[in-house]
Structures are given as structure tokens and as C-alpha cells.
């Protein structure tokens, strides 16, 4: 029997990037906010102290900061009709667990999606006609435009101290930045990162080919930065331990460095860790959330009543909690009806590994977002007529830390083990870099989430089931982009290269990207979206579902910048409209 707790105004399910910002802003406006987090507390000090912070086995291989799969995982299959099996080990993607979520162990690459991305379907139809879209493609417009979101991108970038060079200020193209980006109202709060040897070589080669290289937008601080909440982030020292690690310098923007120190001081905020939410409780008509039920680390069940329930977990947990709670109609791919679980998408990555005989790169130095990139082949920045696909992505060369268990490039054809492997590893460890082709992924009728019929979590509840594979559009796009990357590698003087476009069935085993999107997508039509353009549930208006779960399809960019913008966009709607008159906003 659950113990019923005193009602509060707001509860956030998940205390990561979105949950901390929303809690801070709503607590400031006088509301009582409770944050429920399934994992534990962790902070820069002492959790990421040196020298233990630089332990590749513990963090990169054994996933110290990631989700505990023994309690909950998801099941996976390539296609409807296959039997889904549980993801027993993490591979393809790495969701976080604990305060800060995945924003603790991210790399820090912080983009804005293109204006085109928010109007993918209508702009594709207008420019190319409907034959450009695969019949089963369910990509759609977001219900908001880039212009709607621009002020919110700006707020997030200034909160997280993003380092970069604007390429488009109020419509004026700026030298040194990304000329393809949407117009910005002002410059980045911090200058871009330093340029590594890899970045310089890649940038020179790209320029020679007539392309437009620029430094990646980064949440690894290029100087000490005090954000609008009055918190000061440290300066990055290019140690090369970002992705999968916490930052010992407090130099990577995260809830810990950019929000929590002030949030935790708020008398209106209470954080409860090791609290696993199992259900949002609805009223008898299923039109209103009345509370959430969670289980604590001693097995005690609590019911926390709240006026406003914010689902602020990773994509999978947001969608699963909606399904477990009966919020919105579950998606049925056979009938193509319902919305919750619809339009799961991912990232279509390929790569080119470039080997050199006469250069050294010191790739163990770097930072998560230290990268030189081009955006010439992203979105609709290039003519797709006759190409047989839509979308694209950035193509970039990173210096994000060559830690040797995972970074051991050898030319293709080298044996996997033995003396020859050892010689090639020794020879090329410091003479190699990779070029990533970071491609978009459209949404399709058969790519979706639902609840698994067989496998259960530690509380006896069904796991989320993922059904996913790439389609022709993605294979063609990846081939196209990876050829472009190979041209740049050649122009840079690579003596040999491994060229690996995305081919074959999607596998959940090798790491690809923690850029999972969709399942509770936003839009203007309740028949094709689970939340409206303010990320409010169409069916249960006092529930908002915040995160990349709202992306109707995935763009060619890392999602965090756009997740941050959507957070502030939803926040503004809650503060300026919903709180004054609770009810549907659209």
C-alpha cells in the first residue's frame, strides 16, 4: 500500500538536463517542485576527482555512469514479426542514470537543428514532390519553426555556456562560422575551442575542396564562464576524457555545473534520489494526472500528488511511463493508428578512418566537442534532386580523446590479433584520425516502441520494446556522405583509409550514438503526435513530456541543443499560459 504524500505543485520524473532547468525556473516562480530520480546523487567533487576520473576501463568500458540494466533495460528486434530480446549489455547507445542523467557523460557537441529540420515534410514536398519520400516514411513537421525556437536556443546556449563561432547573425553570414545555420540573434557566449592538428588538417582539406569548415559548437568551456544563474564553469584542459566520463574540472556544461548548485539551495525544491517512478496515476476519466507512484531504495511505495507532472527522463523512460500509465493512445503500426511509441528514430553514422605515414596527431589530447566540421551536406543544404534520399548530416573530424582500449585504428585487412595486429596498432595509434558522417534518420511506420509481452523489469513491469532498422533513404544518404568524407581524407593526404558507410541491418551491439529520438513526438495534429507543439500531452493536459522523445524524426545533428531549446519553449508556455489557465494549450 502506497503512502500518500503531501501534494506539491510540480513533480519532475527524472533529474537530468531538462528536469533541472524546469525545476529551477518553476521553483523560482514560487511553485513547490519535487524531483524524482531513479539513480543516486553525484557531483564534480568528489565523484569525478582525479586521478580516478581518468580510468578508461571503469567509465568507458564498464559504464560506471550509465543505466543499471539489471533493474531495467529494453528489448529489441529489427522488424515487426521478429521476437524482441533484451539488451543485456549496453552497446549501441548509453543512457545515463543518476542525477544529471546522460548530460554528465556526454561529449558536449551542442547544435541548433536547421530551419529545414522543423519542416521536413512540407519543405521536401514543396521542393521535390512526394516521390522523394518513401511511402512508409512518417517524417513530419514539428508544429514549431526555427524562428519560434530561436530565443529558446539562445537561452539554452547562454545557460550552458556554449563555445563557438556564429555563421549567421540576423541573416548576415559570418566568416569562420557555419554559413548554413539558421540566423542567430547574437554571437555564442564563448569563443570556439582551440584547433588540434586533426582539425587544422581536416579544415584545410575541406576548404581546398570548396567546402565550409568551422569549429564544432562545444559545451566544453574555452574559458571560465559565469552563466545567467550565477554559476561559474571551469576552463577545459583538453585532457581527452569527456564522453562516458564526468569532468573533474567542472568544465563540461551539465546539470551539476550549470544548474544544480542553485537549484539545490531553493526552498521550493526537493530532490529525492533512488526513487523509481512506476506509474503516473490518472483520474477516472483519464483526463488528468493526479499523482505519481514511486518505489524507494527500501522498497517502500509512495504516492506523490502534484498539479503538474513533467516527464523529464531519457527518451525510453518518457515513452515507457506514458505506455505504463495509459497516457495517450498506444501506436499500432499495423493499423498505423495511435501515437505513443510512434516515430522512433536514431542516427545514421558512417565513418572514414584516415591513416598517415608522415604525421602525428596526439589524439589522446582533446575534448568531447573538439572537432572541425562541415555542414555542406546536412538537411537540405544541397540539392537532393535525383539522389534518392532526403536529409544529410555533418561531416567532421574530432579530437575527443584517443583512449587506447577503444581507440586502436588499424588499416582494413589487418588481422584482429597477433603480431601483425600489434605492429599495426603501434604504428598507427598516433598517425590516424577518424572522420564521422553523422547522418539524420527519417521516421517510418515500422520503427516504433511498445511494451514487451515477455520481459519485465525489477518491479515486474513490462520492458519497453524497440523495433528498428534503417531504410533505403538512410543507406543511400550514408553512402553519399561517406564518399564526401573520403574525398576530404584524400585531400588531407591520407596514405590509406577505411571507408565505412552505414550498411546492413541495424545492430544493437556496437556503439553508434546515444541520440535516440521520438516515441512521444510533437506536432500540430493529435492523430500523428503524442504531444502538442508545447510538449503537452493531447490527452492529459497536466502532463508535459520533455526531451528528444518529442522529435518527430532525427536531424543530422547531435540532439542536445534542440532538447535544450524545446525545454525553454515548453517552460515559457507553462509559465506564461498554462499556470494562468491550466488546460490544453493547443
Amino acid at each position, binding site marked *: 500500500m502506497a503512502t500518500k504524500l503531501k501534494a506539491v505543485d510540480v513533480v519532475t520524473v527524472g533529474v537530468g538536463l531538462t528536469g533541472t532547468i524546469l525545476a529551477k525556473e518553476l521553483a523560482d516562480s514560487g511553485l513547490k517542485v519535487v524531483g524524482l530520480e531513479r539513480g543516486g546523487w553525484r557531483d564534480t567533487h568528489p565523484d569525478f576527482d582525479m586521478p580516478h576520473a581518468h580510468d578508461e576501463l571503469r567509465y568507458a568500458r564498464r559504464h560506471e555512469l550509465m543505466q543499471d540494466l539489471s533493474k531495467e533495460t529494453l528489448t529489441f528486434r*529489427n522488424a515487426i514479426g521478429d521476437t524482441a530480446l533484451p539488451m543485456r549489455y549496453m552497446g549501441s547507445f548509453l543512457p545515463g542514470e543518476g542525477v544529471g542523467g546522460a548530460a554528465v557523460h556526454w561529449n558536449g557537441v551542442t547544435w541548433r537543428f536547421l530551419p529545414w529540420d522543423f519542416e521536413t515534410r512540407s519543405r521536401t514536398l514543396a521542393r521535390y514532390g512526394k516521390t522523394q519520400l518513401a511511402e512508409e516514411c512518417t517524417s513530419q513537421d514539428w508544429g514549431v519553426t526555427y524562428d519560434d525556437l530561436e530565443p529558446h536556443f539562445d537561452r539554452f546556449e547562454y545557460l550552458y555556456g556554449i563555445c563557438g563561432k556564429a555563421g549567421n547573425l540576423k541573416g548576415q553570414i559570418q566568416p569562420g562560422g557555419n554559413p548554413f545555420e539558421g540566423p542567430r540573434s547574437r554571437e555564442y557566449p564563448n569563443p570556439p575551442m582551440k584547433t588540434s592538428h586533426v582539425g587544422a588538417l581536416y579544415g584545410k582539406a575541406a576548404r581546398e575542396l570548396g567546402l565550409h569548415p568551422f569549429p564544432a559548437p562545444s559545451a566544453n568551456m574555452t574559458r571560465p564562464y559565469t552563466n545567467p544563474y550565477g554559476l561559474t564553469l571551469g576552463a577545459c*584542459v583538453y585532457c581527452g576524457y569527456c564522453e562516458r566520463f564526468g569532468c573533474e574540472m567542472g568544465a563540461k556544461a551539465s546539470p551539476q555545473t550549470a544548474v544544480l548548485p542553485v537549484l539545490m539551495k531553493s526552498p521550493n525544491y526537493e530532490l529525492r534520489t533512488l526513487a523509481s517512478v512506476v506509474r503516473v496515476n490518472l483520474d477516472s476519466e483519464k483526463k488528468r494526472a493526479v499523482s505519481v507512484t514511486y518505489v524507494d531504495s527500501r522498497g517502500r511505495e509512495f504516492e506523490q500528488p502534484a498539479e503538474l507532472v513533467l516527464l523529464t527522463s531519457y527518451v525510453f523512460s518518457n515513452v515507457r511511463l506514458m505506455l505504463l500509465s495509459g497516457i495517450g493512445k498506444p501506436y499500432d503500426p499495423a493499423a498505423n493508428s495511435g501515437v505513443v511509441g510512434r516515430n522512433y528514430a536514431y542516427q545514421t553514422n558512417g565513418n572514414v578512418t584516415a591513416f598517415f605515414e608522415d604525421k602525428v596527431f596526439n589524439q589522446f589530447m582533446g575534448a568531447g566537442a573538439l572537432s572541425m566540421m562541415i555542414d555542406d551536406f546536412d538537411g537540405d543544404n544541397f540539392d537532393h534532386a535525383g539522389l534518392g534520399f532526403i536529409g544529410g548530416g555533418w561531416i567532421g573530424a574530432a579530437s575527443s580523446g584517443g583512449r587506447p*582500449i577503444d581507440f586502436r585504428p588499424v588499416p582494413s585487412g589487418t588481422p584482429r590479433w597477433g*603480431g601483425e595486429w600489434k605492429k599495426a596498432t603501434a604504428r598507427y595509434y598516433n598517425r590516424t584520425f577518424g572522420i564521422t558522417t553523422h547522418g539524420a534518420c527519417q521516421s517510418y511506420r515500422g520503427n516504433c516502441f511498445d511494451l514487451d509481452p515477455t520481459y519485465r523489469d525489477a518491479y515486474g513491469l513490462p520492458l519497453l520494446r524497440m523495433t528498428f532498422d534503417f531504410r533505403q533513404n538512410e543507406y543511400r544518404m550514408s553512402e553519399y556522405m561517406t564518399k564526401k568524407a573520403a574525398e576530404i581524407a584524400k585531400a588531407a593526404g591520407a596514405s590509406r583509409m577505411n571507408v565505412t558507410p552505414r550498411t546492413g541491418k541495424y545492430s544493437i551491439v556496437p556503439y553508434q550514438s546515444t541520440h535516440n529520438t521520438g516515441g512521444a513526438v510533437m506536432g500540430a495534429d493529435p492523430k500523428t503526435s503524442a504531444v502538442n507543439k508545447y510538449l503537452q500531452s493531447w490527452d492529459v493536459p497536466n502532463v508535459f513530456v520533455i526531451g528528444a522523445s518529442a522529435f518527430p524524426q532525427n536531424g543530422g545533428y547531435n540532439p542536445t541543443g534542440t532538447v535544450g531549446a524545446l525545454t525553454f519553449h515548453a517552460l515559457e508556455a507553462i509559465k506564461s499560459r498554462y499556470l494562468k489557465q491550466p488546460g490544453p494549450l493547443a
Partner: protein
Amino acid sequence: MKETSGRRRFLKSAAALGAAIPAGAAAQSKPAPNVDHDKQRAQHMRAAAAQPRPYMFLSQTEVAFLDAAVSHLIPKDELGPGAKEAGVTYFIDQQLFGGYGSMAKKYTQGPWPEGTPQQGYQSPLTPAAVYRAGIRDTNEYCKKTHGKTFDALSRAQQEEVLKGLDGGKIELEQVRSQFFFNMLLANTVEGFFADPVYGGNRDKAGWKLVGFPGVAAVYTPFIEKHNVPYRAQPVSIADITQKIAQVDEHGHAIHVMLDDDQAGV
């Protein structure tokens, strides 16, 4: 820009948290003793009457098997020690005895159909149990085929058996041979390149092979020195906790740079 002055460079962290790195701080150097971390470590170990390192999980038979197997996966050669010399067998023992071996933080509930390659690990066996079964089955195969256990075969025969496991040509009874082999190879690479605190990468053999400096220094002054090799004595976690290596105010290693003739690769 080439480093011309002096063969050893001592990169000092110029960046206090919240303080910008002043221009020109890059070359700032500080006198430091000419220490060799490994020699110092050896002295340290003698002084501390080094604890023996008992195997906790593996039997003697299994140790013999793994010593032989890992010496093929990463052999000792003119480039330096191999996996056996680097203590990879002991590393694997420690991993199997701990959370990794028992699938801590992994999903272990059944049912366990074999699934597709795209669905990944679906065995009801923990890694510890995979090794136990895989080693026994491989030894059974070797006895049947060659009349001896794997460790007693010739190098050439051992190589053939490993290739048979790798390619799936040898069928094992209780685990798929490639499944066992891939786990062994992945753990061997981990043991060769992980921080020595886990019992492998002895004398930092793996890091020295590729020129990885281990626990990082502040690289801000160096990241823009393009095409200049950065050759440092690698620093491990224990070098710092035992105060063998020097650190800056944030705990980053102050690397001792190698002479060119010590630099190896």
C-alpha cells in the same frame, strides 16, 4: 612549432579552476627531479613488501590455458612485452571474480533464446561461466584432436586452435566458440591497455607500445602544437595515489617527458 630547448619538458598546469591560461604560459617549466616512474614504483613495491597477487577465480589449469592463449593474441616481440608478460591473465582473473564476471548491472532474466547477431549477448552464462565452460571445452577439443591440453600444444598448434575458435570452425559443447573467443579477445585488449591498477598492463607495457600517457596532464598549452610528438612517461592512477608522480593543483599529472632515444615508437 618544434620543441628545441631541452629534451624534457615539464608542462605545468597554468589554469586554476576559474583562471584563464595566460598567453605564453605554454612553455612555462618548473624544475622537477628526473624520475623514472617504473624504477620508483619498483622501489616502492619493495619497500612496501609487495603483497602477493593470488588468483581469485581461475584454477591452475585455466591460468595455464589463458597464459598460452593471450600470448598469441598479443605476442611478445621486438616491440615489447605481450599480453602474458603484461599480466593479462591476472587481469582477467580479477575481472571474472568481480562485477564484470557476474554480470553486475546487466540484464540477466530469461528466457534466453539465442537471437540474431544484431540482438547481442543472449547467453544465460555470466562471463565467469563462459570462461569456465569455454576453457574446459577447448581443452577437451585439444585432448581429442592432439592428445594434450591447449597449454601443452606447440605454438603452431595453439595458433590453429585459436583461429578455429575465432572463425567458428571448432564447435564447442557449452558455448559458441566465437562467442567465447570474442570475449577473450576483448578482455585481453582491455587487460593490455587498462590502467595497471586492474592487474594488467604491467609496467604500462600497453601504453608504452602506442605512446599513451595515461592519466592526462593539462594539454591546453600543447593542443595547438601540430605534428609535434608528445612523448611522456605514462602515469597510472597508482603513481598518483602513491605520490610517485607529481600532480598539479587539480590532480592532473605533471608528465616527465621522454628523451628522444627513449621514446620508442
